[in-house]
């Protein structure tokens, strides 16, 4: 203690051996942060310490004088406790590690209750043939699409996570119009949605993930009430090419109930382009009740997973346009048949849609 100068700034100079790496700080002014513990400064600290103890001591010193935000800002706002609290508060409900495509495990857990409520209480989803999904390895789920908001992809995702023995995560491909919607898009991304792009899908399948595609895309979402359960064109068969290239089996999925959840009576294209959406839907509740009108009606849902179809073709077959189109249409017909089978299960056409 006797050799300690009064000026703390000078004592904690950059040449001090106990300051591990002073040059790494953005600002050389370390005196501002100095931790004043007079007990530790006297006596030969390092002489009789082992390597591990030295490490530990260094770590503690480091912890004490670790700035939480850069020093130039600390000078301006010396409320470190407030900033520390703010940082932990800001991290609430999000994790500091997301997967390559932006799925955040903590955010997923945060929305879980909502999906569980929709799944069990609101739509009373009955999942058929979930066991057809393999326990591991890649597969491509191909489903029909309906509804103003993509509740169907959320329900397919939740069905597999909830009812499949391996609790697998499905990565639904989300069309651009939804993916770039303010608020909804980022939420979809955090809970596992990926922008519908062939490169993304291929990357996911090569990582042995379960990918759900809705080949009807925007046209499926924009289906009017009079066209309900009539499958639209299946894009350009991109999903078949994908399956051929990656060797992933295709699992056809039929979703029944999504059409009644948000029956689209009409769509307004006027002004819609200005706010970045292809049309403004007109349903019995939207836009009459404002944003609350986007909540789905409580229809009864069925989700059926068919047996996996393994395409017995080499990857080069993806270039054969005729074959691709034939396979796409074959799968489309199968899903249409599955839908009609499920619709036949319902007792009367409209009321049963809600009572189940």
């Amino acid at each position, binding site marked *: 203690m006797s050799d300690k100068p009064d000026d703390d700034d000078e004592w904690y100079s950059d040449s001090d051996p106990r300051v591990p790496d002073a040059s*790494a700080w953005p600002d050389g002014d370390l005196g501002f942060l100095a931790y004043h513990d007079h007990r530790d400064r006297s006596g030969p600290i390092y002489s009789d310490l082992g390597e591990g103890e030295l490490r530990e001591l260094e770590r503690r010193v480091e912890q004490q004088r*670790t*700035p939480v*935000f850069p*020093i130039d800002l600390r000078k301006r706002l010396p409320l470190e406790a407030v900033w520390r609290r703010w940082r932990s508060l800001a991290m609430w409900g999000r994790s*500091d590690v997301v997967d*390559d495509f932006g799925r955040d495990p903590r955010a997923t857990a945060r929305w879980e209750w909502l999906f569980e409520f929709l799944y069990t209480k609101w739509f009373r989803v009955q999942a058929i043939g979930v066991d057809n999904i393999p326990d591991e390895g890649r597969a491509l789920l191909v489903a029909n699409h309906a509804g103003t908001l993509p509740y169907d992809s959320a329900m397919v995702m939740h069905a597999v996570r909830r009812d499949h023995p391996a609790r697998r995560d499905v990565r639904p491909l989300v069309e651009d119009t939804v993916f770039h919607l303010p608020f909804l898009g*980022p939420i979809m991304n955090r809970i596992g949605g990926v*922008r519908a792009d062939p490169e*993304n899908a291929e990357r996911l399948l090569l990582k042995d993930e379960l990918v759900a595609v809705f080949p009807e895309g925007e046209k499926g979402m924009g289906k009017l009430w009079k066209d309900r359960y009539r499958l639209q064109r299946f894009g350009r068969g991109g999903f078949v090419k994908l399956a051929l290239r990656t060797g992933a089996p295709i699992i056809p999925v039929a979703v029944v109930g999504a059409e009644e959840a948000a029956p689209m009576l009409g769509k307004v294209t006027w002004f819609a382009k200005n706010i970045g959406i292809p049309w403004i839907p007109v349903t019995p509740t939207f836009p009459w009740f404002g944003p609350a009108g986007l909540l789905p009606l409580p229809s009864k849902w069925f989700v059926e997973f068919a047996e996996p179809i393994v395409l017995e073709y080499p990857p080069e077959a993806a270039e054969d346009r005729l074959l691709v189109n034939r396979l796409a249409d074959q799968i489309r017909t199968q899903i249409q048949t599955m839908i009609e089978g499920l619709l036949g299960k319902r007792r009367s056409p409209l009321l049963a849609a809600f009572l189940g």
Partner: protein
Amino acid sequence: MSSPPRPGRVVAVTGACTYLGGELLRRLEEDPRYERVLALDIRPPSVTGAKIELIKLDLTQPTVDSELATLLERHQVDTFVHGAFLSHPTHAAEWAHELEDVGTMHVLNACAGVEPRRLVMISTTLVYGAHPKNPNFLTEDSELRGHRDSRFVNDKVRAERQVQRFAKEHPDVEVCILRFAPILGPTVSNMYTRFFRRPVAPVMMGHDPLMQFVHEQDAAFALQKAVESDAAGAFNIVGKGVLPYTTVLALLGRVPVPMPQLVARQVTKLLWATQLVGSPPSFLDFLLYLCVADGDKAKRELGFSPRLSIKRTILDFLGVAPEDGATDVARAQA
């Protein structure tokens, strides 16, 4: 992947005063395989050494190409590293254009005459541009979209196109382009570090794209690898992992200010025009859409894989010590 050691190599580095240039000088100085390093810049870099020779060179001068050619000829330069690019946008757009676009032309003119064995160019992943149609991982073959009205990005795109054309016309020269993700770290200074040093940051209301960074030490290591190896072509140099923009702000403890797009554009336009902020309005697109690159090719062909995760990179930029107490972040387990 890694070349057999060739003794007596001479390396010329433009932009020796930049962070990457300085780091490269330091690393080459320590490596016995390199005989001499020419540091070319308009002012002397902070790094000095026995092998380092400082030469004042202004790439905006009209006859700098012949000057450079004589220099390369005289010193028998084996590898040319072109890193004279701006790390943050400037209001002096004309000068920036002269330096980046025309300066690259001068460098290529000199290289076309002398034909050094290897040409390494430093670029950024910003050249891909933030676009709603971008896939989650942009590969090196993706189109260089640049940005509609960002001169900062477009000058780099034009410079890179010139270098690509040069590579086609001169098959004898190994041309290697390194596209660095935004570099973060305690010492580097660029557009992103300036942006994240502010206590508040704009957020485009309802949008939250994924972001990617590379740690300054990883970036410097990649550049060193690129000078050593004989791999040709473009390489994305990216860090480990991605994080949503708002999570980055939360980790940094910055206050997000959500703004509707129209308001944000007008506000940044005003702030940029009055020179109050260092990021132009076109930068807002990078807060709206993805611009994340895939680093697999660099791993396969260059032998570079990043050591630090994005979280560790952000915390190191912030000045938070690693949890395992290691004083050298580069060795820490992130």
